């Protein structure tokens, strides 16, 4: 495991309230490490404290307790003047892009270089290079108001990368974009991570963003990290209710109770949900086992997608055959993967663990 480039130790941020006792603990005792070279996701619903957490990294908000160490520098208690060079070494992109409307695209990208004291000639060269990297080399002399959202975020990324930072912070960077543009921007962030070796911290409430690019994730609620780990593990075995809700919203692969009722009405056979992931392998096993036991399988629901670039999902199948053969096939499947038996319309088995947690009031949620 590589050395941490960002270390939170009991990091806490309390905003004073307007009235006494009205203080807000936006970040509450967070301890975690972000490793150099990874794409780290922080997910949570709005108000969970993730935006504040990311602002502790470049000290736009100072901690009120605990410490934050970035690339060997302890930010705790540093003066504004001492923090400025630290900030200049960390790129940041924003949901609303935050481009200067009074400057052209090139002028925006040149801004951090001016701050860093680069000469005019070097600035011009670097700006060209950056705009080519993000794929908008032809927009240099255009004002931001003439750009689409995706183009604006590309300018934002170019600007954030200008001074060759080691860390890029993305604060809801794709939340204002349509799905297609989101995919483009996420792909660009992945390139930034792979080709330039920049550590990326992605803050988002969109599980899709995490699913497609993050190596590790932290799930936040009420200012605390409630789940932390490898993105694939967090997805495949979510423990906290908030995480389960996120996973369910991102992978619409498991039938909800209502869907299940319709499936049973439509399909007379035994309905089972079979998990497909890296460990269980592809659906090849499913085909083999069913053939072995002389059972017919019809896929009636589900989907397989990628999490952290590895396969993940589930298939819901109607099994038709003699009851003994179906039981034997189920036993065979259970040996290789997780199987949930929903039974038949005549003999329904409601296995709660199979059913997607219903989005809605979950205890302890902040919505």
């Amino acid at each position: 495991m590589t050395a941490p480039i960002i270390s939170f130790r009991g990091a806490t941020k309390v905003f004073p309230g307007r009235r006494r006792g009205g203080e807000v603990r936006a970040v509450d005792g967070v301890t975690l490490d972000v490793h150099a070279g990874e794409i780290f996701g922080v997910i949570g619903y709005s108000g969970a404290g993730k935006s504040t957490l990311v602002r502790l990294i470049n000290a736009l908000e100072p901690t009120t307790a605990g410490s934050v160490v970035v690339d060997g520098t302890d930010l705790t208690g540093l003066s504004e003047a001492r923090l400025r060079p630290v900030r200049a070494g960390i790129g940041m992109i924003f949901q609303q892009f935050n481009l200067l409307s009074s400057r052209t695209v090139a002028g925006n990208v040149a801004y951090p270089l001016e701050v860093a004291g680069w000469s005019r000639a070097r600035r011009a060269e670097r700006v060209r290079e950056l705009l080519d990297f993000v794929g908008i080399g032809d927009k240099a002399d255009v004002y931001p108001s003439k750009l689409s959202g995706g183009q604006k975020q590309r300018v934002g990324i170019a600007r954030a990368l200008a001074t060759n930072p080691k860390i890029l912070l993305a604060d809801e960077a794709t939340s204002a974009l349509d799905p297609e543009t989101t995919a483009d921007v996420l792909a660009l962030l992945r390139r930034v991570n792979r080709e330039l070796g920049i550590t990326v911290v992605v803050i988002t409430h969109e599980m899709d963003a995490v699913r497609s690019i993050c190596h590790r994730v932290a799930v936040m609620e009420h200012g605390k990290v409630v789940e932390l780990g490898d993105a694939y593990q967090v997805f495949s075995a979510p423990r906290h209710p908030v995480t389960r809700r996120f996973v369910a919203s991102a992978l619409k692969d498991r039938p909800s109770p209502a869907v299940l009722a319709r499936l049973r009405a439509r399909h007379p056979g035994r309905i089972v949900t079979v998990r497909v992931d890296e460990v269980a392998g592809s659906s090849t096993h499913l085909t083999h086992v069913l053939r072995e036991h002389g059972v017919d399988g019809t896929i009636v629901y589900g989907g397989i997608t990628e999490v952290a670039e590895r396969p993940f999902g589930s298939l819901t199948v109607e099994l038709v055959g003699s009851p003994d053969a179906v039981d034997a096939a189920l036993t065979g499947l259970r040996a290789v993967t997780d199987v949930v038996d929903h039974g038949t319309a005549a003999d329904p088995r409601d296995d709660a663990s199979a059913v997607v947690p219903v989005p809605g009031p979950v205890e302890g949620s902040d919505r």
Partner: protein
Amino acid sequence: MSWDQLGPLLWQAAGETAYMVLVTLVVGGFFGLTLGLGLYLTRPGNLLANRAVFAVLNAAVNVVRPVPFIIFLAVLGPVTRAVIGRTIGIEAFTFAMCVMATFVFARLVEQNLVSIDPGVVEAARAMGASPLRIIRTVLVPEALSPLVLGYTFLFVGVLDMSAIGGYLGAGGLGDVAIAYGYRQFDWAVTATVVVIIIGIVQLVQLLGNSLARRALRR
């Protein structure tokens, strides 16, 4: 009054008005911008948030601004004497105009800066920019268009103030309209001055609008 007499009179008065207005626009504009930036920056939650300084600046603006200018001239008397050395004449009058214009423009500047997206300021901070640099490269350029319009508005206000220059013997177009028109029952003189003033205001407003549009970058 014949045109032969009125012509040179108006010419001289226009020169006095131009002096008063231009000096006030430059001096009041500069100090107003500074004071307005101070108000904006020290406002709670902003770049140089400082409750005490903000309270003092805010109170000063609120106290000075509503005082009618003709009364303000009298109240400011001792200060004018201390700075200019006398309380009458075009210099003394212009000094009072500068002070009032500073407070008026300060509020205009502050109001225009408040409309800037705080996210842009945050982005500049995240790139390691110092407060002074942010003022110079973010706040002023981003609010330039409304600032130009505010400055144009200030021009009209300053021209308005200059009309009572006659009370301190500062002369100006307003003085001609009062002394030679109103007091001598010569309506034509008053009307002529009004037409000239309207013409000037129209021209300046046109110029301000066109500059503001060019500064908008949209």
